[in-house]
């Protein structure tokens, strides 16, 4: 009883929290290798080496930062990512937080992530980080609607806001096929919440690193780690919402979940660097004018499909 409800889910969440970002870093390394940015041996060690360098480098302080908020922001981002992972059902029995409204709770994690990313850029009290922070808020306030519509779409056939019910409703057909627009739209949300690739408005190159421009050392390590962890959490939610979670033949559920999460991560790691970064203005227009109507269409599709 205790083992099923507490120990195993906790162990799985913590394992995903530690291993997931590491594997994502390895995947990123593979993609970078494909683009010809790095080469040579040490694919598996490279993330550890980078992490070691960040641990050794001193943490920067600016002239008049909001010191507490600045240190708190990466840790809070990590906590939000962990909270997201806690919602992921690993199997029918092993769910760390199996509540009736886990989809809404994930939505609130997305909303709070915007706050935390803003805080990271704001607290440094430097020019480039500040611009990065405000830019990200434009994106963060826009993608959230797309995310809500898409997730409500998966709640329709499940008749529930709990992720476990969403998975059970996919027994016959996974949502990725049943609602073909859903997963692509949701993947865009994933890139946006971790500001990767075309949606890297927060830590962009034109701001010399944006919200990270004046961050160094261990704080940067936690920030990058949390950013990866958030993508891992996102991939867990995407797996549950669209890829049938633990459903799958032969293997035990948690393994299926892990495989599907890895597949989503690999797809996102590959998609991220493939596109040029959008300008903030473009991003906002894209979200409201293109993706939001598409999310409407997805919802209508899901509605029609659920009734038939």
């Amino acid at each position: 009883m205790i083992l099923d409800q507490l120990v195993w889910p906790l162990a799985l969440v913590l394992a995903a929290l530690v291993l997931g970002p590491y594997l994502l870093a390895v995947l990123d390394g593979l993609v970078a290798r494909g683009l010809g940015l790095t080469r040579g041996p040490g694919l598996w060690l490279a993330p550890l080496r980078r992490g070691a360098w960040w641990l050794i480098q001193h943490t920067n302080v600016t002239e008049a930062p909001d010191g507490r908020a600045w240190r708190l922001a990466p840790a809070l981002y990590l906590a939000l990512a962990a909270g997201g992972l806690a919602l992921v059902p690993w199997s029918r029995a092993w769910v760390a937080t199996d509540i009736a409204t886990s989809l809404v709770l994930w939505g609130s994690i997305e909303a709070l992530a915007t706050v935390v990313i803003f805080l990271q850029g704001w607290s440094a009290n430097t020019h480039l980080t500040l611009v990065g922070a405000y830019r990200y808020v434009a994106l963060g306030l826009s993608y959230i609607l797309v995310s809500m519509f898409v997730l409500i779409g998966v709640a329709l056939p499940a008749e529930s806001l709990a992720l476990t019910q969403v998975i059970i409703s996919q027994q016959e057909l996974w949502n990725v096929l049943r609602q073909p627009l859903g997963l692509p739209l949701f993947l865009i949300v994933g890139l946006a919440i971790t500001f990767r690739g075309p949606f890297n408005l927060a830590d962009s190159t034109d701001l010399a690193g944006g919200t990270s421009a004046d961050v160094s050392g261990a704080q940067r390590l936690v920030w990058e780690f949390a950013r990866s962890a958030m993508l891992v959490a996102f991939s867990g939610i995407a797996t549950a919402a669209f890829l049938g979670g633990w459903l799958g033949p032969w293997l035990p559920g948690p393994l299926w979940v892990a495989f599907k999460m890895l597949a989503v991560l690999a797809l996102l790691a590959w998609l991220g660097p493939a596109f040029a970064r959008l300008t903030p203005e473009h991003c906002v227009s894209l979200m409201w004018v293109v993706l939001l109507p598409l999310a409407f269409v997805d919802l209508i599709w899901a509605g029609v499909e659920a009734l038939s």
Partner: protein
Amino acid sequence: MELLLFFVILILSLGAGLLLQWWPSRHHPMPTYPQRAPFLGGGLPDTHAWSRFHVRYYPMALLLIAFEMEMMFMYPWAVVYVAQGMKAVMEMGMFLAILSVGILYGWREGVFRWQ
């Protein structure tokens, strides 16, 4: 029970994040003033960065608030959608159509562009 575990996970990760930042830098001295100046490629700022920052997307932010209110009605709607059938379709269709007018109007007036 679920909430307890959620809470434990939050606290654990928050603590780990803070510890990981604090532990390596606990003996580091305070950096010098020149190091703490904002990085501007060798240039210097006249003022602090914190200011009445001119957000260029404020109409969008306000529009979002109104829209998000409405979204909160959609979650309970989604749960009873299949059970209520056509009635739910009609009602939400009307609701969304009314609000789409708002977005269309905003778009027409250039709300999603930088002011």
